[in-house]
């Protein structure tokens, strides 16, 4: 493949190959896009052998941190493949769960297996799809068995990974309400009536099917 736009022949003195190489190097470096032989030749003085300069330049950069690479029929400098990791800056950011996610997770942990409707009744607000997805993505929650009630809703249960992360042997190890209170987490005075179960247990209204049998089914 030979080059050189024949705009006007032989006006300039022939350039040394190394000088041509420098020129190709500069042109490619400064270009925003990969350049074809023709593009480069149109910038260089007449009589330049761009193909040869490119070959020599490619060899020069062979084992360097950047390499002269061919992209289709165009040429560009690119970071050496083995150094690609330098172009990535990975940071680990510690981020807390949103309140919605924490509450949903707590409900699932304490009441599992629990349907979405039940979660919503306990929280008093709708559970967004994103919240559950997020917990599932974190592998802290997974879909359990379907509830044998009309509509056969899916239930949610916590995972092994959840137990791992929270340092629990089983979901039964979750402290009960009495312990929460003892720990000062329930700061308000104890509710007067029997409305609050100490151990995961659901209101009659919430569960048509008594849930005790399948509590912690997965252990």
């Amino acid at each position, binding site marked *: 493949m030979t080059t050189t736009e024949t705009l006007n022949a032989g006006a300039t003195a022939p350039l040394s190959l190394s000088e041509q190489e420098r020129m190709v190097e*500069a042109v490619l*470096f*400064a*270009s*925003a*896009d990969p350049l074809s032989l023709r593009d480069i030749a149109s910038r260089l003085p007449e009589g330049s052998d761009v193909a040869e300069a490119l070959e020599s330049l490619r060899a020069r950069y062979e084992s360097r941190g950047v390499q002269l690479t061919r992209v289709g029929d165009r040429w*560009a*400098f*690119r*970071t050496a493949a083995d150094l690609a990791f330098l*172009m*990535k*800056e*990975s*940071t*680990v*950011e*510690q*981020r*807390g*769960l949103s*309140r919605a*996610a*924490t*509450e949903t*997770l*707590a*409900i699932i*942990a*304490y009441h599992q297996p629990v349907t979405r409707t039940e979660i919503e009744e*306990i*929280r*008093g607000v709708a559970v967004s799809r994103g919240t559950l997805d997020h917990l599932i993505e*974190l592998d802290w929650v997974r879909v359990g068995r379907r509830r044998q009630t009309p509509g056969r809703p899916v239930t949610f249960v916590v995972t092994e990974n959840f137990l791992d*992360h*929270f*340092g*629990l042997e089983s979901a039964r190890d*979750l*402290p009960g*309400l009495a312990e*929460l209170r003892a*720990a000062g*987490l*329930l*700061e*308000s*005075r104890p*509710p007067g009536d029997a*409305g*609050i179960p100490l151990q995961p247990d659901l209101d009659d209204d919430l569960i048509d099917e008594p849930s005790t049998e399948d509590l912690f089914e997965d252990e």
Partner: protein
Amino acid sequence: MTKVPYLMPVPDKEAMGETPPPPVAESSGVAERQAEEVLVVDVSGFEGPLDLLLTLSRTQKVDLMQVSVLQLADQYLAFVEQARALRIELAADYLVMAAWLAFLKSRLLLPPDPETEGPSAEDMAAHLAFQLERLQAMRESAARLMARDRLGHQRFPRGAPETVTRTRNVAWQSSLIDLMRAYARLRTKDEFRPYAFDRKNVFTMEQALDRVRGMIGYSGDWTALVAFLPDGWDNDPERVRSATAATFAATLELAKQGRIELRQTETFAPITIRRRTE
């Protein structure tokens, strides 16, 4: 009107100090008018009195170190005169400079007065020459700076910079205590709901009224009040209490309306009711 060369157009170019003022055209009516018009432009073209002085000093064709300040003062004052004659409005700082130069000129011409405080006329002249030289030096420096190999003109950065991809790995954190707190929050939240009476075991007076009204038509005879209690409200003491109270209140209301009669034979005896007959 006398023509002075430095009233001619002054090139306002970056190549400062390189182009001498063009030669004066021989005066004719037209040329004079043109010169006058040009003068207006020129005055605004000067970057202040110091710039004007610098331009004037070039007509002396000497190194700035050797410039005759006296001569320069004359040139400047002539310029100002000329401008006045042409009714050109000069900015205040040009006039301040003119006043100062007039003062300097008089000091330079008079023998030094030993009584005078402050710097000598020679020092003042030297300082003016210094200021001109310094301004000239800065102009040359500016020109040299702009003539350097500038980025984007002669030197170029990488045209296709590779962006550093920042991958941000989020480690979601939550602790058992967070979980417990959240659950505790949920479980105690009921206590803070707006107060509403728990009506599970309450039989309201409205319900009782409806019931008694409905039933009274069929019983023309004295009937015990407890017979009016609804089904399912006669076992649980709490419910019995509520239903009895409501039913009693309902009968009182109906009695007041004159629709029924109540009777109790003695204290704590069962209350009986019957429909009132007109």
